[in-house]
């Protein structure tokens, strides 16, 4: 079976761990639990008729100001792609995602990625605001609204990324 390592990246509190828990175990907890270190999970998918195993690395959240909360890029060694998670209720987490994406490109090189706009169940009006989102769309980033709480968009997020990874 083909295996693909996928890293979850984003600011703290955006729901990276919750997205993985929803996708892998169909679980959701309202309680916020900050991630230290890395938790590795696995889920098998079928992509174009072939089985693919996603090895998901849930990384700690990036702090916006705290140097000690910078994600170590060494975790991305061997990754086939990554998910950039932003919180749809905290537009500033887009900036953190942009910084992370640049650091990945600078240190690891180009890898396929998808942006999960999480907490869609809470309403994400800023996604429709061109002054906030316009420059992101210009970069051809792929945005998928998700809700780890309801499960909306979660399967689509990982399935679509897996399809791109398999396509190479």
């Amino acid at each position, binding site marked *: 079976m083909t295996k693909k390592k996928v890293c979850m990246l984003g600011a703290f509190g955006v729901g990276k761990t919750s997205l993985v828990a929803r996708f892998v175990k169909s679980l959701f907890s309202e309680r916020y639990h900050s991630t230290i*270190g890395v938790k590795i999970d696995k889920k098998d998918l079928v992509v174009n008729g072939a089985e693919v195993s996603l090895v998901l690395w849930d990384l*700690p959240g990036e702090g916006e100001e705290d140097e000690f909360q910078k994600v170590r890029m060494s975790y991305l060694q061997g990754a086939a792609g990554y998910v950039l998670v932003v919180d749809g*209720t905290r537009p500033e987490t887009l900036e953190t995602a942009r910084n992370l994406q640049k650091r990945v490109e600078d240190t690891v090189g180009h890898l396929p990625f998808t942006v999960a706009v999480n907490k869609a169940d809470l309403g994400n009006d800023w996604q429709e605001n061109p002054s906030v989102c316009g420059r992101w769309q210009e970069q051809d980033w792929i945005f998928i609204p998700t809700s780890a709480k309801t499960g909306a968009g979660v399967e689509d997020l990982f399935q679509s990324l897996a399809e791109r990874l398999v396509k190479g």
Partner: protein
Amino acid sequence: MTALPPSISEYVLHLTMEQQLPAFFVLDQEGRLCEWGGRPERYGISPLNQEPDAELFPFLHGIVPLGDEPVFFPCVETAPNVFADIHVFHREGKNWVLLLDVSADALRQQQMQQRLNEIALQRKPGN
């Protein structure tokens, strides 16, 4: 750098063995397990089962076949509430994987980070 006297290096070794519970594995170039020792059970790893290696070592996926460059993955949760610093390196013709327990530090850091993040989230506009 001056060499450490034996008393110090032995003391450091003793501390590491007591507190960081090392486990080691020797792998071939394709990542197949050849030898192991130390405390693998501490990390939820059961080499005796001889599972396919990618299942035994999910953290190695993507870096096998192993190169000459050392790899370091800090603070990986290998079992519930068990965190290890993982060192992968090539020495004396063998590929070594070394796990050192950092659970106590990780759990302390988690509690502190949790408080800091909660405060930061409460300060956000609209909260």
